[in-house]
């Protein structure tokens, strides 16, 4: 389990996160949602230790993230996979080299074992046979899938995804969601997804955390989203008149039944 305890963060006096506490469970898709500027990315960067909070703690099991020395932090990070918003694939490397990079850096596998592992990860994200392509030759969705393959190549215990669906068409976005969800369930890892994609919320949102103006405004599951009366949640999820109408129709149908 990953726990965030009373996280505060400010940049030169401007408060970005204020007293955020929550915990994330294994085998479930934990979604952090919120409007742009709500502090999602900062929170995610704090959770993985790329940013230090002004105060507060992050626990990975019984380990306090910010009490680790550099070597211990590096060891912990080897258990973390991360999918970046822009995929962050190394342009000068092929797909295969990108995925193999963490193996080359940290594993003691033989060359053959590494190749097998890379092929397995590529198959897992439905990109078998694309080993020799460069990131520039791939579509946005394919780049995201390579990013996922690289994130899981070291068999991580924790998977972090920053806006995995941004810039993708709805169908590809659903495929990416399904892929992340199946990896989470099959490998029983702790997955934390930073998103403002409503499809993701309603499809894979096992545990949802709504950040609003730097505070945790609501937590619940995808089933509770439709029935919640939390105003901040409603104004965020059902922002358009179309979705508001849809919610009223849903409430009516539930009431009729």
């Amino acid at each position, binding site marked *: 389990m990953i726990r965030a305890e009373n996280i505060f963060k400010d940049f030169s006096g401007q408060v970005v996160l204020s007293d955020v506490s929550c915990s994330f469970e294994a085998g479930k898709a934990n979604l952090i949602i919120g409007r742009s500027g709500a502090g999602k990315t900062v929170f995610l960067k704090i959770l993985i230790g*790329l940013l230090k909070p002004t105060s507060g703690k992050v626990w990975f099991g019984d380990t306090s993230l910010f009490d680790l020395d550099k070597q211990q932090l*590096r*060891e912990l990070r*080897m258990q973390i996979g991360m999918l970046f918003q822009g995929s*962050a694939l190394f342009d000068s490397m092929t797909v295969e080299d990108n995925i193999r990079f*963490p193996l*080359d*850096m*940290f594993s003691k596998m033989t060359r053959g074992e590494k190749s097998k592992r890379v092929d397995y990860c590529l198959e897992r994200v439905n990109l078998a046979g694309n080993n020799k392509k460069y990131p520039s030759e791939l579509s946005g969705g394919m780049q995201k899938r390579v990013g996922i393959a690289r994130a899981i190549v*070291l068999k991580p215990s924790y998977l972090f995804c920053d806006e995995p669906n941004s810039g993708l068409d709805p169908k590809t976005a659903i495929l990416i969601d399904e892929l992340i969800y199946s990896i989470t369930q099959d490998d029983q890892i702790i997955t934390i997804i930073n998103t403002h994609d409503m499809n993701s919320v309603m499809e894979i949102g096992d545990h949802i955390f709504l950040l609003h103006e730097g505070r945790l405004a609501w937590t619940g599951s995808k089933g509770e989203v439709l029935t919640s009366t939390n105003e901040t949640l409603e104004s965020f999820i059902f922002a358009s008149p179309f979705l508001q109408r849809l919610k009223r129709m849903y409430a009516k149908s539930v009431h009729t039944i």
Partner: protein
Amino acid sequence: MTKLLYHFGRYVLWLGQAFRKPERMGMYWKETLRQMNNIGIGSLIIIGVISVFIGAVTAVQFAYQMEGSIIPRYYVGYVVRDMTIIELAPTFSCMLLAGKVGSNLATELGGMRQKEHIDAMEIMGVNTAAYLVQPKLIAALVVVPMLVCIGAFISIIGGYTAVVPTGWFSHGEYIQGLRSFFEPYNVWMMFVKAFVFAFILTTVSCYQGYFVKGGSIELGDASTRAVVFSNILILLSDYIIAMIMTS
């Protein structure tokens, strides 16, 4: 002043991080070879071109200065040789490399920072300062002295081609000058300068790129700062080395 101290402190701490033991030697070795090719082979032609002109201009200027004087004519070869070895080859070449290689390094690392490549490596557990700086530094420390040495040699040939075929001096005079008053210590000084300048241009440029924040304008600024600060520090250290090694 506070800003200067802040950057100096951060630079020193960052260097400490960059000199940590590599996670996997093989990966660093591969990257070092790539950088040697980039810095060395990629800069050979430009170093050759400027070196020819450095030698040629030195020879022509000296010939002009000594006209009507009682200075022995063969001194032209001696002056070109020593000017080139002691000062012009290491300083000019490294200032040029600060422009070519330094801006390239700052832009490469800055681009990696902006595209979150450095964050991605950090998350994997890679010591990014070490992985991104050590191979470049080792490559520069090996290749830059070689380039400077080649540059000095070409400069001397450049001086010859400027004044001998044109008839200002005879072949014998130039060669006699080259063979006169040779001090091996000067070559040692050239290599010391080349090492120090290589260290400065690589680390300063990498530092500027590594900590880039913002967008393309900031990346451009970082690249400019890399060149300007490298050149200033090269000239400053040139003066310090000259003071120490010639006193």
